[in-house]
């Protein structure tokens, strides 16, 4: 499932913007439930299909979904830590997609893993991993670590700390995170939020695009090998920029002087009061600094 389809599907189910706990209109049947502590830790495994995680204000874990008769759903543990999901089958057996919805306390955390299943979570903290599925995280979280081998990752989180990785997928950072560490290998990385105080963004061949204002006192580090770094900053921006490339070009549309014709240069510019600090370096990718 592509990132956009997953996001639209979440929005249709009211998971993106709604408060957690309000279940979708045609909710699948409850598979299991149990009372847990507010800080419950869940380990979830669903290889194929989709898993939606919803943080709510109740002291219980509820799992909804339909599991094919050939598959076995497991749900065990105690009130503080639990494991649930679909049991792994032998490699020769075809995997059936299963759609699960898991409700858990907002202060709880998850470690969820899938093969090609997409993962969508609202108001959930923890570790989210999929080999080729998409990951969409929204709402508030204490922290989040999202990893996909090749799927898209979209973060629309309010959180003090988030880390995200993908290979060729599209990675989008929005919402209101404070400390962000995000990278791709070949996928495009888009940063669309001005809430970041510490940001590290890297790619090898994918373009890294930052399109937002920068907070006063914030610190950014952009790194790319052959992809571009594109910084679209408002004219009122207050930042010190330290841009360097070995064999690429620097195009600073704010600066009076245009040095970029010769490769292997660096350019230091102060815009406004220079309150934020931005370091960007590439090997042979272009660095552009421009108004939006």
């Amino acid at each position: 499932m592509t990132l956009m389809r997953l996001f639209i599907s979440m929005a249709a189910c009211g998971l993106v913007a709604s408060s957690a706990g309000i279940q979708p209109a045609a909710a699948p049947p409850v598979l299991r439930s149990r009372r847990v502590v507010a800080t419950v830790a869940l380990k979830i495994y669903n290889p194929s299909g989709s898993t939606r995680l919803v943080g709510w204000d109740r002291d219980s874990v509820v799992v909804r979904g339909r599991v094919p008769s050939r598959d076995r759903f497991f749900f065990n543990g105690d009130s503080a830590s639990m494991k649930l999901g679909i049991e792994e089958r032998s490699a020769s057996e075809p995997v059936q997609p299963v759609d699960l919805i898991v409700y858990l306390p907002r202060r709880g955390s998850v470690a969820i893993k899938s093969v090609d299943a997409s993962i969508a979570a609202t108001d959930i903290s923890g570790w989210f991993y999929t080999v080729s599925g998409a990951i969409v995280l929204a709402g508030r979280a204490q922290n989040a670590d999202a990893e996909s081998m090749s799927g898209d990752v979209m973060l629309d989180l309010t959180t003090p700390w988030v880390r995200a990785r993908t290979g060729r997928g599209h990675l989008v950072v929005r919402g209101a995170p404070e400390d962000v560490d995000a990278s791709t290998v070949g996928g495009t990385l888009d940063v669309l939020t001005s809430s970041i105080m510490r940001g590290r963004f890297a790619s090898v061949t994918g373009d890294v695009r930052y399109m937002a204002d920068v907070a006063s006192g914030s610190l950014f580090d952009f790194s790319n090998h052959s992809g571009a770094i594109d910084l679209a900053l408002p004219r009122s921006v207050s930042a010190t920029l330290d841009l360097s490339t070995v064999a690429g070009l620097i195009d600073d549309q704010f600066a009076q002087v245009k040095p970029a014709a010769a490769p292997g240069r660096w350019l230091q510019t102060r815009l406004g009061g220079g309150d934020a600090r931005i370091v960007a370096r590439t090997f042979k990718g272009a660095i552009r600094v421009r108004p939006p």
Partner: protein
Amino acid sequence: MTRVRHLSEEERHGLADGSLDGHGIRDAEAHLTMCAVCTADVRRLRSLMRLAESAPRPATDLDSLWPEIRSRIESSKVARLQPRVRASKRRGWLVAGLLAAAAIIAVTTLELRHGGAPDGRIATTTPTPLSPAGDSVRLYRDEAARLLEEMELRRATLPPATRTAIDDDLRTIDEAIKELEVAIAHDPSNPALRQLLASSYRQKVDLLERIGNAG
């Protein structure tokens, strides 16, 4: 009573290894003319750096010693104590080391360049004889080599499409690393190249860890 403000750790290191530039170096050198404490410390750092540079290199290629060391370790084992736990502990220390090295690079990079330059100033890259990025490259390279061994075991269990994606990503990163190593061979004192190399190795370690998580 006025308290004397001494040079920061970064400024003293920057003076000692010549990486401090612009206004920074002028201010720092002016401070040295009236501060015996900082002068002594900078002198001590310079002497340490000279000592480190003149230290003899190992006569043997360290990589070639590893197989023998490993077989000795293996033969001395009497019992295997939860290998996964031990592996994860070791990984924890390595990750902590890598994070610390990355933090040093980030802080050093940001602080060394923080010199209050005027608008639109242009300069060529300043050579930095000693760069912590070199240490983190070594750490990342070692970790990547270890993870590559583990990946070979897990790779077979992954779906063909995922294997193809992994191979493509690894090839992309390895090509970047190769280009950077060639560039460093031509311009060994360029700190930006070393930082980019460290970043590429970091990407490789991240990718190999993701592959490890797939198993």
